[in-house]
């Protein structure tokens, strides 16, 4: 127990001090920042894709909504992009409710295909919507007007912003994992029919998870847009955005708290390194490697890397509801 605490403490200190320790190496600061950003998206996906087992391949809809909201509040209203974070999250939650009600009724592959279809539909519509720049996309503030624009040349401030957001997402996930809802979601994942027959309101809980996941994904998208100051239909709504979230979670271990983070820790550096090693010619090769790794995971490690660790104690059962206590007595 003691040395486990010591280990956690060391990891936490390393994570907090990482950019300071590497202040002479901006490339690594940037890399750490990108890992955190990817982990936010993948952890958000994990809520519905991992815990509830509803494999969405269309989360780019929410990522793009967040990213566009951040830049659009600047281009249309002259506000700092950060204002778009709550706006984007709110719109994404509403969209999730609208898409979720008909789509979550589908099961298995049907659900995945429907999410792809919706995402592609939205991507084509956005590409043809001039108010948000059509196929050209939108650019954020060219120079920082005030500090509120959050336009920094160093990656260090972004690192801590993203770290805080990731911590919040993981905290919420952890709370849900140990709550009644977490048990319901895992029950739905194992067998929706069995869960329903035991009185779990499966539709409602899937929708809650989907909406929450959408909101967090939109925050990730907004932060992406704040950092890069640019978004177009492909970088916001492209199918690769959805696929990357899914792949990171699956590689690390879907349905596990730290699975998506582990996946991001492996895949983001891999992508950056192969991009820089292979230069301009590498754009294609990076994804060839990516694809090969994914095939290998699916073939040899279908439950993710964290599944290799010995099983931990399951989280404690939540207290029974008052009604159930009365019934038992």
């Amino acid at each position: 127990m003691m040395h486990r605490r010591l280990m956690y403490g060391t990891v936490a200190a390393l994570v907090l001090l990482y950019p300071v320790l590497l202040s002479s190496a901006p490339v690594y600061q940037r890399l750490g920042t990108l890992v955190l950003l990817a982990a936010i998206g993948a952890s958000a996906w994990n809520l519905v894709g991992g815990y509830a087992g509803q494999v969405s391949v269309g989360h780019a809809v929410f990522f793009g909504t967040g990213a566009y909201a951040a830049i659009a509040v600047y281009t249309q209203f002259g506000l700092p992009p950060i204002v778009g974070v709550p706006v984007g999250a709110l719109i994404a939650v509403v969209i999730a409710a609208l898409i979720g009600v008909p789509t979550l009724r589908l099961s298995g592959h049907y659900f995945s295909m429907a999410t792809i279809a919706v995402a592609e539909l939205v991507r084509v519509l956005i590409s043809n919507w001039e108010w948000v720049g059509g196929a050209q996309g939108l650019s954020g503030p060219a120079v920082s007007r005030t500090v509120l624009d959050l336009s920094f040349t160093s990656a260090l401030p972004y690192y801590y912003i993203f770290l805080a957001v990731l911590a919040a997402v993981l905290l919420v996930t952890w709370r849900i994992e140990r709550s009644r809802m977490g048990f319901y979601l895992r029950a739905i994942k194992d067998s929706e029919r069995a869960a329903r027959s035991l009185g779990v309101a499966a539709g409602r809980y899937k929708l809650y998870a989907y909406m929450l996941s959408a909101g967090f994904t939109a925050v990730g998208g907004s932060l992406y847009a704040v950092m890069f100051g640019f978004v177009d239909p492909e970088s916001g709504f492209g199918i690769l955005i959805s696929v990357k979230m899914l792949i990171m979670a699956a590689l690390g271990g879907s349905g596990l708290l730290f699975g998506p983070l582990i996946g991001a820790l492996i895949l983001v550096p891999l992508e950056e390194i192969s991009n820089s090693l292979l230069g301009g010619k590498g754009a294609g090769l990076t994804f060839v490697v990516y694809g090969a790794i994914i095939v290998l995971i699916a073939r040899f490690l279908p439950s993710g890397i964290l599944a290799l660790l010995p099983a931990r104690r399951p989280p404690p059962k939540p207290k029974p509801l008052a009604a159930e206590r009365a019934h038992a007595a």
Partner: protein
Amino acid sequence: MSLIVVQVIVSGLLIGAVYALFASGLTLIWGMMNVINFAHGDFVMLAMYTAFMVWTVLGGGPAAAVPIAAVLLATLGVLSYFLLVRHIMKGPMLAQILGTFGLALLLRYSAFWYFGANFKTLPDTILGAPLVIGGIRIDAPRLVAGSVGLLVTLLLHLLLTRSALGSRMLAVAEDATAAQLMGIRPERMQAVAWALAAGSTGIAGALIATFFYTSPTVGETLAIVAFVTVAFGGFGSVPGALVAGLLIGVIEGLSAFFIGPVYKDVVVYLLFVLVLWTRPQGLMGKA
């Protein structure tokens, strides 16, 4: 005016027949072993590049490209089955999606790396001048592609329903264990299904390359067309895919003509979503 609409419909039916052919491959695999091949569009893409290479390197037209693409893609299908699909089909659904998606990325970006991002097209006149019948102009590549597509789809249907091989495959699809007890080897039948599905996809790709632009990401667009076709026609049904393919070809053509070329995808995707939401078993599938 009305003549133009007729022309749009004819051209839609011709491209629809090709859609039907490559959607048949997807639906065959889906119905046979309940696996969605997310790399299906990229199989089509590889067949299109095959046709392109046959033209530029060997100087051969579609008559040479079609059989070459069929053989190459059938081989790829069998390899995919034995090396990947056979192992992931019993696993969790996430692993199935990951496996075929990974394969899709691998193929798509290998093509991107090797051929570059630029669109490639075969010469318009590769199959001769357009025909004019009763005032309707039909491009020769589309006519050939549509007719061959229709023919091969029908042959595939006959093979599945009227031959001993088809019956054995159907038996494995319904109950692999029972089929095995009757002396049928499920793995061999599933490998045959992959060969047939990928082979017919190869034929469709080589045909479509004669009048469609070829690019590394074209598979993404075509995969969605195939998904829509399968969703319309009912999963696992080749005749359903045929009717749905023709229907989608016409819907695409008409919406490009009446609403604008940009919105043809919007209309098709919208129909896809609506069909999935309301009738996930397909328009023609049984409830």
